[in-house]
């Protein structure tokens, strides 16, 4: 194993975090907040440490799949450890574990918060929370690869481990250019959203931070009532559309950018994704119609909630804890389904779900005709057995982690709905759950043990299980 290269890449990542931490520092300066100095201190600390680690580039820069997994897992953990320090030393979040939970929730684009009153946070803290969504959404290492000169072909292993989805496709032949393109698309869409929100009269700071939350499909709100605070159909509409947009595979958005519309709209995953959204919105609209003055209002809230949950953003405009059970269950199912592969969203991913279903049907056919040869097709291509195997393993591990976490959380003796939805929401990177941890509640009442487990779940969910679990695998550490 190329330990030197792992160490070196971690150093590069910390340097990058140091640079990124200057942004909340600048925000603090603009708003003349004294806490911003802490961001500066941590920025310097992180940069210097990273610089020391990356001072000597290793001779052998080749990395293989195992180094890729390890780099990603360790980067995300150290990223969160450093990212939490400013919250803690500035005293805005008194406990380090809480601060850690908050920033893990930020980077993994979960959006679950332990804060009871976000409105009293400083602008610098609010910025850093939301900005962590933006960075975490596309991935910090994708960022590092995009903007550092020494990316080689083998860095694809890093991208593969960090990008969501069963199959990672490059947009162009070079990893570095691919990463840059991804970030360009990402930035352009974010800017468009900021502009649209400002046109509707939202202040610049709010629209920027809310756009960060949408782009990373994170969902940290800057108001206690989340997006519901603004109570505007226009904002709801813009944010709904952009949430759904950021849940689409970025490769498809790239095709739209280079005007290959046909290729983009032929995508099978996109059709399923939009189909599921449409069905869910219709079902919930009719289910909650009686609670709102008109069907249009019901549609507005249903659409926002469905978009928010399936893309695992987690913004809220209505307390869906008050909705009928049917609607709540639909939302929980959507949490598991998640967004498209290659997007910034979490969950199991639409493409995996579709392949599971197709494989199940094919398997049933095989049982009836034992000698038949059935091949599964997805996106017009044959899905080979390695991929099928891999995504099934994913599902098994997913549920192992899920139920193990549920078991540990149940030690705290809270009610079933809260425990179940807390794990669901964290492992799928959604944000709010139901009951205690529901849209109007938060995670502050949970025990320390539960918070640690949920942090773990969030990282597992964001990095798609394998990298984090592999830290515990003996064979990874063997030479």
């Amino acid at each position, binding site marked *: 194993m190329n330990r030197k290269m792992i160490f070196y890449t971690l150093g590069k990542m910390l340097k990058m975090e140091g640079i990124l931490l200057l942004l909340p520092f600048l925000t603090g300066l603009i708003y003349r907040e004294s806490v911003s100095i802490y961001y500066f201190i941590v920025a310097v600390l992180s940069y210097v440490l990273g610089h020391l680690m990356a001072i000597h580039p290793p001779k052998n820069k080749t990395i293989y*799949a195992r180094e890729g997994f390890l780099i990603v897992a360790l980067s995300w953990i150290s990223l969160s450890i450093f990212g939490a320090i400013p919250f803690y030393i500035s005293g805005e979040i008194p406990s380090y574990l809480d601060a850690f939970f908050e920033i893990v929730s930020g980077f993994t684009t979960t959006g679950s918060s332990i804060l009871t009153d976000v409105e009293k946070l400083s602008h610098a803290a609010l910025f850093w929370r939301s900005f962590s969504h933006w960075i975490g959404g596309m991935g910090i290492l994708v960022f590092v690869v995009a903007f550092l000169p020494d*990316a*080689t*072909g*083998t*860095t*694809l*292993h890093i991208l593969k481990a960090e990008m969501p989805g069963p199959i990672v496709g*490059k947009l*162009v*032949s*070079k*990893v*570095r250019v691919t990463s840059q393109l991804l970030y360009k698309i990402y930035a352009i869409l974010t800017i468009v959203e900021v502009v649209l929100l400002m046109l509707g009269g939202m202040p610049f700071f709010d629209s920027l931070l809310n756009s960060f939350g949408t782009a990373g499909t994170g969902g940290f709100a800057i108001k206690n009532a989340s997006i519901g605070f603004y109570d505007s159909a226009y904002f709801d509409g813009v944010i709904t559309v952009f949430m759904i947009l950021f849940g689409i595979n970025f490769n498809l958005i790239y095709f739209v950018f280079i005007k290959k519309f046909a290729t983009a709209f032929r995508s099978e995953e996109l059709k399923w994704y939009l189909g599921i959204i449409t069905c869910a919105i219709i079902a919930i609209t009719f289910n909650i119609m009686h609670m709102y003055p008109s069907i249009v209002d019901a549609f507005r809230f249903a659409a926002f909630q469905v978009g928010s949950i399936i893309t695992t953003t987690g913004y809220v405009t209505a307390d869906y804890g008050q909705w009928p059970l049917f609607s709540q269950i639909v939302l929980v199912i959507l949490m598991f389904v998640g967004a498209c592969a290659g997007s910034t969203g979490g969950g199991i991913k639409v493409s995996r779900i579709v392949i599971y279903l197709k494989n199940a049907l094919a398997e049933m056919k095989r049982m009836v005709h034992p000698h038949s040869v059935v091949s599964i097709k997805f996106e017009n291509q044959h899905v*080979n057995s390695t991929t099928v195997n891999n995504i099934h393993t994913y599902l098994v591990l997913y549920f192992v982690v899920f139920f193990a976490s549920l078991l540990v959380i149940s030690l705290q003796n809270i009610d079933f709905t809260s425990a179940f939805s807390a794990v669901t929401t964290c492992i799928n990177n959604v944000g709010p759950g139901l009951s205690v941890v529901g849209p109007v509640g938060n995670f502050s009442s949970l025990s320390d043990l539960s918070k640690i487990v949920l942090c773990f779940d969030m990282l597992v969910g964001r990095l798609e299980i394998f990298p984090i679990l592999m830290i515990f695998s003996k064979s990874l550490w063997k030479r």
Partner: protein
Amino acid sequence: MYIIIIGLGKVGQLLTHYLSNEGHDVVVIDEVQKKVEDAVNQYDVLGLSGNGANYDILLEAGVEKADTVISVTTSDELNILAGLISKKLGAKHTIARVRNPDYSHKKDFLRDQLGFSLIVNPELETANEIRRTITFPSVLKIDVFAKGKVELVELKIDHGIRLEKRKLSQLSQITKSNVLICAVKRDEEVMIPNGNFELQYNDHIYVTGSHKDLSRFCLEVGFINQVIKNVMIVGGSKIAFYLARQLSVQGIQTKIIETNESRCIELSQKLPYATIINADGSDEDILLEEGIQQSDALVCLTGLDEENVILALLGKKLGVNKTIAKVNRLSLNSILDQIGLDCIVDPKLIVASEIIGYLRAKANNDESSSVQTLYKIVNDQVEAVEFIVNEKTKHLNQSLMTIDIKPHILIAGILRNNQMIVPKGQDVLEIGDRIIIVTAHSRLQKLNDIFED
């Protein structure tokens, strides 16, 4: 450059390796999904699986904006077809590997009428390479620069050579010939030597000079340079055919030993001057019977690497001066050197270097100075590159002593008015010079890259 490589066999993989490392945009196409995945995992390239002559696949690979399409699949027909389609779809250059002489013998037609920029025939190129080494028997490997005016040869320091335990600065005391030792390989390490470097037994040295000077150098320092008169070839492959044809032109007697009878008949019809023996060439008795001890050189060209290696060793034991073995598996090279087998030819590597040399020359056409020829020597660790000096070159007419040149770079020769000059401190670069650079750095794109500023 935007390059599409069709076919990920050994040559395809080598090309992918070099071209992606040099920073080109590379797209690879192969029918076998697994090979494409491996390439994408290992190199910074985009992969597509499918038939490389398929219209849709080529379009998906971006053929319309491709600078070069290289087709090196196992099928000649597919390579030609893929090249034709790519050309029609807008690719600037097309390169195809064509093995079958039935297709490739009219190179002019392929180039002018069908638009191929380069047709490579691995067997023919290999035969050329073997012929060059045979005509210069003390040498392990020869590369030519400046249209043959300058040669770069690899020699091994054996006992009895007067260079052993000598410093390079003493070279002028031993020989008056106008040559330069530009790289030394010791064990697996490669060095660009300076004056204080002391040569040892078993070092491989790389020397540049004109053919005449090199012959004189070999003579003066004690390399035996016996003229080869007859050659024994084991294995009647295509390479053997090309080689025998070329050697007979030079008046060298050839004897081909081949097991397959019908192939023997075919060869005997095509090669009236060569002696064709229908027997098992791996049998020692047969070799003795056919007079291997009287042969000046033994060339092993059977289909099996192992057999070639063993036969070459046997030849050495039986006292043949020059043995050459064809080995397809590059990874074996380092071991082969240790067991005393030093003259190895690898058709895949030869083809890959030819294509890469061509691409480099193309890629740099509009740069300040362009690569004319390129060789990868010493297991690819060192490159020898030929440039032409033009008006954009920096430091024109300054003496070389005063110019800062990057470390691990050596100016190995200057060719001016067809005269080879071994560069000394007071020499200068002039417009129109062809200069040969030896470097342990990869990716020397243009001449100005060698200067420190």
